[in-house]
């Protein structure tokens, strides 16, 4: 039985920062730092195998057991609700899920609120709790233009610095939830590779500062 710990990392800047934490924790894999287009990297000595996947797919790899652990944004976890353990808040990739609209927007409860978002489940849950009737418009990108063109009243999206919003004359109105990168684990993998996963978790935790 394969006792290597399979680790799914999100491709991109966040993934590279996260890998540095794994390296610092003593789970380095030198081949990953070579410049090439490979996606899978192994260090049998340390018992780890890393692979780069699209950030929004990390949770899928982990939930289905192709990866034992991985790093995914809280936004993805809230949107897809994968059945995984969420072991650690890595306190990086920090941003927030927020409702934004044009500066002059005034909400009226007298009509259905049109919400454009990449995160229909998060938006639906948020407005459901407020008993607000909404019409969700699922978009895949350039969410900011939806209110400008009158496609929607508001957007629900990730806000990091607010610069993109500002440049498009939008302002964040309410924060739904703060977002950061989380260490997640497959539930079965956690039982059978517990010691290795705990060691990784501990190594990462030691590097986290508020």
């Amino acid at each position, binding site marked *: 039985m394969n006792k290597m710990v399979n680790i799914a990392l999100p491709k991109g800047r966040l993934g590279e920062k996260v890998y540095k934490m794994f390296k610092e924790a003593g789970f380095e894999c030198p081949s990953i730092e070579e410049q090439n287009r490979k996606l899978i990297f192994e260090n049998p000595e340390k018992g780890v195998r890393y692979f780069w996947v699209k950030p929004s797919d990390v949770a899928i790899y982990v*939930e289905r*057991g192709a990866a034992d652990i991985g790093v995914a944004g809280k936004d993805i976890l809230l949107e897809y609700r994968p059945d995984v353990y969420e072991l*650690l808040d890595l306190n990086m990739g920090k941003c927030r899920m927020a409702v934004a609209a044009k500066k002059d927007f005034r909400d009226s409860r007298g009509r259905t609120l049109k919400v454009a978002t990449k995160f229909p489940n998060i938006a639906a849950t948020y407005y459901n709790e407020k008993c607000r009737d909404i019409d969700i418009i699922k978009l895949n990108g350039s969410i900011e233009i939806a209110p400008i063109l009158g496609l929607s009243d508001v957007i629900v999206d990730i806000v990091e610095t607010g610069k993109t919003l500002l440049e498009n004359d939008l302002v964040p109105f309410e924060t739904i939830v703060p977002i950061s990168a989380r260490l997640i684990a*497959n*539930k*079965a993998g956690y*039982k059978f590779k517990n010691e290795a996963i705990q060691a990784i978790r501990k190594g990462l935790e030691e590097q986290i500062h508020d």
Partner: protein
Amino acid sequence: MNNSIMRNDEQAVFALRSLYQRYGYTQYKMSRFEEYDLYVRNKDFLVSDEVITFTDHTGRLLALKPDVTLSIIKNTVDRPGAVQKVYYNENVYRVAKGTHTFKEIMQAGLECIGDLGSYEIAEVVLLAAKSLQLISPRYVLDLSHMGLVAAVLSACGLSEEAKAQALGCIHQKSRHELSALCAEQGIAPSKEAKLQALIDQCGGAEQVLPALKALLDTEEERGAFAEFEALCSILAQSGYGANLRVDFSVGNDMKYYSGVVFKGYIEGIPAGVLSGGQYDKLLQKLGRKSGAIGFAVYLDLLERMEKQESDYDADILLLREPNADPFALMQAVEALQEQGRVLVASAPPEDLRYGKVLRFTEGGLKDE
């Protein structure tokens, strides 16, 4: 019967049926359909609340059953002092997570309903462990106790809403979220430590239970703890201690589950294959006096278990001439079957793989 030709789930069905019968459980066979109303009234109890419905010829709204337990409960009656033990293997119909399409899922399991004593509860958990053992010796059975978890949450003075959130954090082993929740709710550090212990304390009962015991102080907590400790001790004495883990992340529903809850994992399968618990509260909700405990084994997951598959579709391909003597050929096939699976064809089939190729001629068998 030759086990190697059976799929993992088929093997498991036979083995589990025989196991449950040895403990006096009788088979419960049910209709594919059930009145939709039954599921609507208890939809939180279901794994998924999406159900395939249709109207029968009298205008009743029926559903393809998404769950077995509710049907069994509906069809049993309370008899003071008695216990009914049934097992089943049935197909259920649920929406597969992520794909939004319905799937037919083969499920085996058992239910024990009636006046439950500590023996009945231990027997069911033991059968869960034995069921996993039959599927693979490399298994883990995670055990928790909803009564104990609920008592700890109450003792910490959390509001009902916060209790559900805290339970969610424990379910996900999310220490950081639990800390944030405690800070928001103004929970005292000593009480937070107790809540965090429900995440941190997982592993063998002999290590976890003493550490946890030291933190408990209300009568309700101690009562539930004693029950859980006694159960773990019986299981350990029965020789199943090594594969048992106390893990309070099992089960995230206090509405239906009241006592022990458990989940079983097999190495090589990414999700839990067995899930169960004591659900007295569901029966109370249905106006019943009985207690109940049971579990289900998700047989569809077993296909993900590694099984040595043959590299070939047939071990021997036996080519025949168009005018070969059928009787002599038949005898040759029967003799060759000693060596494996024999496929007779006049020309090699294109899409199959075979171990070796022989030709049947009047003079006997020849290598091709």
